[in-house]
């Protein structure tokens, strides 16, 4: 239905929680292949399988690396507050239309049920992008075709090159991250979504104990703030990625740091939320172990 409504040129979105997103992978591949904009909200729960309905971040790979077939990417936004849930929803539609590509909003079962004040601006910044490709009826123009089928090897390679050029453009133009107490940080945490709010407190607690901690919060998971992490590898002594999964984003952190500094991981599984004290303990253990 999203594929059909997006073909008609309308702003379109779908949402689900983990298993439902798995079911939609076929459609996501077709949406990218046919260059259709849409927004997909995944409020992540524990997996694999039916898992549970507690908050998790174990669909990072699925959203960022792609859970469906073919070479593709989806812009992935990771809000940390209810305000960002609102702001990023607007941004997601704008980005989807601008780049003709699906955009993920990746949150979790805690953020999805959280209540916080949200300021809704008088004028919501909705961008209008022309959609001359949309199926509106072939009136005063040639027929439009929305399609991802290119049977010839050459045709499909050319189509893939167009997609890859678009992904490259996105990588050059889209990037959001936040930092906390980074100026003199020696031990840098990396966390997204709900976990970043917990790690925020961990940074303060660590500094009270004389550990110069800092925090990088990627708010786009793809594109990922790899360049910034690479810069930070010059000043930092260690990195630690904290996630509600078995270690997914940590792979992207490691790629960015590229072996120059130790990259540690702390995570909780199956819908468990990491505690501030446990995270600090994990960092101290790693540092003292060095």
């Amino acid at each position, binding site marked *: *239905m999203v594929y059909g409504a997006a*073909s008609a040129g309308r702003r*379109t979105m779908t949402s689900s929680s983990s298993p439902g997103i798995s079911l939609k992978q076929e459609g996501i591949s077709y949406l990218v292949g046919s260059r259709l904009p849409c927004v997909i909200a995944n409020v992540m729960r524990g997996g694999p399988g039916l898992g549970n309905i507690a908050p998790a971040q174990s669909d990072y790979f699925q959203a960022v690396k792609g859970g469906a077939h073919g070479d593709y990417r989806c812009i992935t936004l990771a809000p940390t507050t209810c305000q960002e849930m609102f702001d990023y929803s607007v941004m997601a539609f704008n980005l989807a239309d601008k780049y003709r590509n699906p955009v993920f909003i990746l949150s979790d079962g805690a953020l999805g049920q959280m209540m916080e004040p949200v300021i809704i601006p008088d004028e919501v910044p909705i961008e209008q992008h022309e959609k001359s490709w949309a199926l509106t*009826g072939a*009136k005063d123009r040639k027929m439009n*075709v929305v*399609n991802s089928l290119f049977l010839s090897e050459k045709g499909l390679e050319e189509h893939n090159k167009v997609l890859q050029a678009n992904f490259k453009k996105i990588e050059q133009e889209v990037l959001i991250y936040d930092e906390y107490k980074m100026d003199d940080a020696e031990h840098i945490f990396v966390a997204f979504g709900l976990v970043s709010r917990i790690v925020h407190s961990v940074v303060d607690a660590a500094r009270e104990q004389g550990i110069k901690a800092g925090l990088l919060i990627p708010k786009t998971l793809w594109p990922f703030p790899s360049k910034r992490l690479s810069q930070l590898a010059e000043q930092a002594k260690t990195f630690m990625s904290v996630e509600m999964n078995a270690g997914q984003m940590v792979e992207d952190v490691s790629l960015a740091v590229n072996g120059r500094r130790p990259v540690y991981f702390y995570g909780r599984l199956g819908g468990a939320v990491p505690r501030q004290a446990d995270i600090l303990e994990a960092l101290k253990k790693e540092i003292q172990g060095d």
Partner: protein
Amino acid sequence: MAQKVHEIPKSIQNKPHHYCPGCGHGVVLSIIGELVDELGLREKAVGIAPVGCSVFLYEYYDFDSVQAAHGRAPAVATGLVRANPDLHVISYQGDGDLGAIGTAEIIHAANRNENFTTIFINNAIYGMTGGQMAPTTLIGQTSETSPYGRDPLTDGYPVRVCELLNALEGPYYLERTSVTTPAERVKTKNAIKKAFQYQMEGKGFSLVEVLSQCPTNWKMTPVESVKWVNETMKKTFPIGRVRDRGAE
């Protein structure tokens, strides 16, 4: 004086198609083209190409088209008509697409009485992939994957889609036709015309099931395949009107 008795519809591109000699797809394609012209629908029509032999429909239609994932045409059609109710959406599916992988989509779209038309080509076999047993394969019919004939004990029974959908309150118009003779072609055209008119009036969901020959995969000549539709296939899939809310 020379008189033009037939021309290619404006809504169909003037080029050779890839269908096998004797196949029913080409006949139905030209019927759709004629009706889109006659009813003045070209500028609001959106065709949906399924997966299967008719995957290239958008290469033949000369109006807006979208290619759908296997079995998902009714969901794509729903998205299109709900996003823009002014569109005239023509969904086209074969029996492998509609009757197997897309069973859920067609049942729910019909049950919601979505305002689009489905043209359902039933040739009792998977054509494009080389003649495997389909949900519509007849009892005893041989195929690449039922070399000893379809056995209901292991393979189940042929799915009668019109009758299945007739169990639902939703659908507005259901009819089964064939394209084995010029007279049957006229009946098919009338049925699809009625479906299109109901859609134009916003009446909702219509499905016209067309029994179609597949001489290549049935391993028959075109003439034999026409005979097989008339004498064998129609016993399992009787042609005629299954439901017409407009005539009630």
